[in-house]
Each structure stands twice: as structure tokens, then as C-alpha cells.
């Protein structure tokens, strides 16, 4: 409570408190998000509850991912050998720029100017579409929601449901202005899906090159796994002649047996389904079956720096299920765009500042009440609140918060580290009680208390603190 007397602690005018503000006030967005997250949350709750061994599965998932991260150097070498052994080509990229360059040069080598894409967060992280476009190559997103976002020149706002911020009629209007020009559409989901199908089929049949992300890369066999719901990914992974898959260094699992654990954990956590609809697995190339050329781009992009942080490291266990977004009270009211990153929600709040380190991402560790709902649902048991608190300290230690705040907390620490100093502070507050309570009554408080009282009352300070009462009455 003592912090109520502190002065205004807001830092610079960038970051989550400002980017979230217009979203909080957007009642349509709030309604779209609430109905979508509540529905997925309830569905997940039902399918998780029917697994008696859910906690054991989570422990197993955590253990596999943590073991891989602890031995990542040898797993990466093993994966490279396995992929090459089955006829794939492995490319190493230190950062997003290198990864983009590798992909563009592969497309150019084949003389193509169009590629189809399977939904991929890693390529969003790289800004691949923009990079290809500047290089004269058009990338067509084929995941329905990614297509919607691309056509709207918008950005994804959810890891799994990129267009969660839009409703049906908004999508109908968008299609009528783009891929279905001149056609009258209703906002019936079947009609909208058919419109996208007509458009996308042509792209699948004409594209020579496909680009995908990677859900899991199996070190032992060189097998790559991509999970998706629509089958559009399957089209991209099987029809074009050349397949380029891009992954972060952390996406490895040791064996195909381990995959079984994640194919249980992932769909139940992400879409609330017992089994994922389209699970594609491939190992290199096979004559007359699927792509003739397979390239795997393995990108670091600061992940090895995350790996070096003993507390932050667990962030890389993430399998991108997005369960943490759907239970987060903050995400539900801000949506993904407020996080100003391809990784929104609680996982984004710990991943973005570690990967990108931008000024706005440094505000994200504070974009949480630390309610712990994210940790509770995480299928690989990432202790997100622990990492959030760790990153708060890290950001402040690197000196990105106002020194007046630090000064005030130092004084607070000095007062609270001694019983007699705290006694004195409480006695002083008691003496000033009438003055403080009068201020409260008029609602004209400076600093922090002023922010509090915009929508909330403050209590009056009681006549007697507990310790004074105890001393007077001896607890009787």
C-alpha cells in the first residue's frame, strides 16, 4: 500500500500501455476477442479434462524440450546430418537477414517470381514476405486466416487464429473488394471458404516453390513435421517442385517417438481438438513423390542468446500452441496487435523482449498481472510469470526505466528493511491521516494514487495500525 504515495511511475510514451489503449476502448474488438477466446478456452478445458494423464504428458513434454535445449549443439549437428542423409539441403542463418537472403536466392536460382506459403510464424518474424516482395517475388499466404490478414494489409493478431480480431462480415467485405471482385457474397462461413478455395486452388497448381515453417524437426531421422487444420498446407508441402522450410534452432525433438507426446499436447492445447486434422511428415525427397528439392533453413536470430540465460531459456521450450493467449486476461482485452510483435500474448511478452530487444518490446514484461493462468495451461510447463519477473529485473538493470522510480523503490526498501523504520513510517502516516483522508475525499490525488482513482475508490486510512493496536492491547 505504501506505493500509493509514490509519484507517477510511467516511463516513456512507447510500449504496451499506449499501444493497448485504443484496443481496450474498441468495443467491437473486445466483443470479437471475448467470444473467440472464451470458445477456445472452454473447448480446450473439455478435451484436457478427459485425459487422466495430462499432467504426466506436460511433464514429459517439458522434459523432452528442456533436454533438447540443454544439448542443442549436438542435436543441431545430428539434425543436419540426418536431413542431408535423406536428400535435403541444410542452410544455416545467423539472423533474419541471412535467412531472408538464403530464401530469396533459392527462389531466384529457379527463376520464379511467385511462391505459395504455409502459415509460419518464423517467416513472419523474419519479415520474409516483405523481403521477397522487395526482391520482386510475390509470396501468397494459403492459410485462410493468413490470407485474410494479407489481403487486408493487416498483421496477424493471434498465433493460431491470425484474424481473430475480424468477424465474418468484415471478411466478406474484404473478399468482395479483393479475391472475389464482382461477386456478391454472404457472410456464411461456407460461402467465404469457397471463395478462398477458388482463389487458392489456382495458386497451388501453378506455384513451383513452396515455403513453410516447421513445427517439429526430428533429429534422429531428419523428418520434418507441420501441423495445420485446413489441408492448404498439405497442398503446399506436396504439389510444388521445390520446398523451402524455415525453422528456429530450437524446434528440434530427438526421435519420432517423442513426436507422439507433442501430437497429444499440441492440438488439445491449441485448437481444443483431440487430434490434429492435417499432420504432414516428410523426410527429405523421394523420386516421383512430392517435392524434388528440399531445403531446410535453420535460423538463430538471437535464440542462442536466450539459451544462455538460465531463467529465460525455458521460453524456447514453446511449441506455439497459443493456449496462453486464450486464458490471458490482458490478451483478451488488448488483442495481439497491442504487443507490436509477431509473438503476442503471454508467450510474446517473454519471447519478444528476448529476441528483439526493441524499446516497445521492453515494456511487455510488465503487460501482465502475473495471474499465472498462462503457466497453468502451458503444455510444456514454461513458467511464464517467473520469466516475466526475471525480465522486468533484467530490463531495469540494463537501465531502461526512469531513475526516479528506482530512487523511490530504494527508499521504500530502506524503510521496509527495518522494523523500527517501518514503525516510524506508520506513525507518520497515522499523524497525517486526516490530511490524506481529506485528499481522498476530494479525489484530487497526485501521481500513482491519481491514476488509481480514475475508476476506483481508495479506502480511508484507519485510526490505528495493527501494530499499534497490538502494543496497546497485547493481542487481547
Amino acid at each position, binding site marked *: 500500500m505504501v*506505493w500509493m504515495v509514490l509519484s507517477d511511475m510511467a516511463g516513456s510514451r512507447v510500449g504496451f500501455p499506449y499501444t493497448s489503449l485504443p484496443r481496450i476502448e474498441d468495443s467491437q474488438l473486445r466483443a470479437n476477442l471475448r467470444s473467440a477466446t472464451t470458445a477456445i478456452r472452454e473447448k480446450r478445458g473439455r478435451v484436457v479434462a478427459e485425459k487422466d494423464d495430462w499432467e504426466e504428458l506436460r511433464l514429459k513434454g517439458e522434459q523432452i524440450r528442456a533436454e533438447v535445449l540443454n544439448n542443442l549443439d549436438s542435436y543441431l549437428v545430428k539434425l543436419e546430418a540426418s536431413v542431408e542423409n535423406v536428400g535435403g539441403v541444410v542452410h544455416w542463418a545467423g539472423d533474419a537477414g541471412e535467412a531472408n537472403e538464403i530464401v530469396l536466392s533459392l527462389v531466384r536460382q529457379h527463376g520464379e517470381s511467385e511462391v505459395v506459403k504455409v502459415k509460419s510464424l518464423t517467416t513472419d518474424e523474419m519479415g520474409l514476405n516483405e523481403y521477397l516482395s522487395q526482391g520482386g517475388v510475390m509470396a501468397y499466404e494459403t492459410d485462410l486466416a493468413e490470407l485474410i490478414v494479407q489481403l487486408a494489409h493487416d498483421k496477424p493478431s493471434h498465433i493460431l487464429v491470425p484474424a481473430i480480431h475480424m468477424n465474418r462480415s468484415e471478411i466478406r467485405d474484404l473478399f468482395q473488394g479483393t479475391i472475389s471482385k464482382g461477386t456478391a457474397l454472404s457472410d456464411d462461413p461456407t460461402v467465404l471458404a469457397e471463395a478462398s478455395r477458388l482463389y487458392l486452388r489456382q495458386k497451388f497448381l501453378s506455384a513451383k516453390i513452396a515455403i513453410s515453417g516447421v513445427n517439429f524437426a526430428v533429429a534422429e531421422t531428419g523428418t520434418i513435421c507441420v501441423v495445420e487444420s485446413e489441408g492448404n498446407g498439405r497442398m503446399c508441402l506436396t504439389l510444388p517442385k521445390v520446398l523451402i522450410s524455415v525453422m528456429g534452432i530450437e524446434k528440434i525433438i530427438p526421435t519420432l517417438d517423442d513426436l507422439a507426446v507433442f501430437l497429444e499436447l499440441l492440438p488439445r492445447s491449441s485448437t481444443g481438438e483431440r487430434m490434429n486434422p492435417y499432420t504432414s511428415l516428410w523426410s527429405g525427397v523421394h523420386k516421383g513423390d512430392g517435392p524434388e528439392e528440399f531445403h531446410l533453413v535453420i535460423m538463430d536470430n538471437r535464440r542462442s542468446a536466450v539459451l544462455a540465460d538460465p531463467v529465460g531459456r525455458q521460453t524456447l521450450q514453446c511449441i506455439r500452441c497459443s493456449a496462453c493467449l486464450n486464458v490471458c486476461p490482458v490478451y483478451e482485452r488488448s488483442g495481439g496487435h497491442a504487443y507490436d510483435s509477431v509473438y503476442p500474448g503471454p508467450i510474446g511478452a517473454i519471447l519478444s523482449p528476448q529476441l528483439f530487444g526493441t524499446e516497445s518490446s521492453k515494456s511487455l514484461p510488465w503487460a501482465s498481472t502475473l495471474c499465472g*493462468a498462462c503457466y497453468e495451461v502451458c503444455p510444456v510447463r514454461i513458467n511464464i510469470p517467473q520469466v516475466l519477473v526475471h525480465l522486468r529485473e533484467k530490463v531495469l538493470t540494463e537501465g531502461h526505466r526512469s531513475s526516479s522510480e528506482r530512487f523511490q*523503490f530504494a527508499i521504500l526498501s530502506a524503510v*521496509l*528493511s527495518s522494523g523500527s523504520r517501518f514503525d516510524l513510517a506508520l506513525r507518520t502516516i497515522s499523524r497525517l491521516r486526516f490530511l490524506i483522508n481529506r485528499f481522498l475525499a476530494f479525489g484530487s490525488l497526485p501521481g500513482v494514487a491519481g491514476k488509481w482513482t480514475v475508476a476506483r475508490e481508495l479506502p480511508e486510512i484507519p485510526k490505528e495500525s495493527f501494530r499499534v493496536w497490538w*502494543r496497546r492491547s497485547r*493481542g487481547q
Partner: protein
Amino acid sequence: MTRSVSLFVSCFNDMLFPNTARAANVVLRSLGVKVEFPRRQTCCGQIHVNTGYASMAVPLVRNFVNTFSGAEEIVAISGSCTAMVREHYLELANRTNDVNLISKTRELVPRVFEFSEYLTDVVGVSDVGATYPHRVSYHPTCHSLRSLHIYESAIKLLGAVRGLQLIDLSFAEQCCGFGGTFSVKNSPMSTAILADKVANIVNAKVETVVALDNSCLLHISGALKRNNTGVSVMHLAEVLAHGLDGVV
């Protein structure tokens, strides 16, 4: 054997909610537990750790450990302070490289209990003899629910209170939006989350909202009062002290 506990009231309750601490004292004594209040106690350090100034919490940890290490059992009347001790104290003590402090902390942490948890799991009581004839909803605060996992304790205790009608709260497990300094650093977001919590409380048509953390209750009551809902808030200890002798 007479049980003896040291009460950790927290800086927040000491200053703003002395009646909660007095109620806890009454309930514990009525059960034959001897209650001490070590005067050197101050604050658990949660506000420093959660805002990002963990190193400044280290002297507070030292003060807490020195104050309570002689106590048999420590009862805290705040879920989040209890969670702070359990989740962060050993790590913070380790930072000092002070072998004595580290070993004292290691021994102390398992002896720190949240009030309702102490009653049901240590004393082994669910009916303390209280009477509170009102419609009540229980808001399981985040730390008590997801860090301490003690949802059942409060439900058992409330269930045994005479005349008390326990009404389900929709989306009860959702945060109230407080989050310490979050409530001012991200004030509009905090109040947006709070608005939904308040709407659910109003829909439940209860007279009192009960929880294990006065910090969350302060936040919730701030909006209940501002919106003139007529719904009051009360720490579980105060409900349990109703109808017992010596209540303030």
C-alpha cells in the same frame, strides 16, 4: 500440545486493514492456538520483486527471516505474500552468498502458511464456529489459486459458516486485474479487467465478496464503491471471526 504461531500480517494489512489481522488473531485463539506478533516484521518484498527491483527485496527477505526464524509456524493473512515467500525467498537469499541466511531461509519457508491453509491443513478444522447469514461469493485470488493451490481450504471453511449462502461467481478463476503496480502502470487495462469482474459480481446478486487477499479486495471494492453497487468485500478471516467472542 498447544500450537503456537507467529502472525505475519503484511505491511499492507498492518497499515490499511488492521481488522483483518485482529480477526485472524480471534479465530486462531478461539481454536486454542497461541498467537504472537513479532514487531520487527515489515513487508515480504513482493512489490519490489514484481516491479523488477528484486535486489532491493533482499534486505526485506533478511528482515523477514531474522524476524521469524525462531517461530514454530508462521501464518500469513495474504495469499500473495505467502506465494512470494514460497516462490522467491530461497532464490533471493542465495543471491547474498550468506550461508547462514540461506540455511535459515531454507528451514523457514516450509513453515510459512496462508491463513485458510493453516486452518484446514495444519489445525485440521473446517468449522470454526462462525455465523454469517449473508449471500457470499468467493473470489479465488490468483496466487491462492494457481501458486498455492488452496482453493478447497476457503470453500471448506465458508461451507461450514452458519447461515452463509455460497453463490457461484461466473469466471471466478479470472484475475481481478490488480497485479500490484500493474494497476497503475497499465491502469486502463487493469480497470477493463476489473469492470468484467465487477459485472460478474453484480450478476451473482451477492452481499459480500470474500477472498484471501486484501490487495485484490481493495481493487475490487474500489470499483464496487465507485459504481454504488452496495456489495461489500471481506477477507475470509473477518467472515470466520463473525459470531466468535472478542470480535471487533
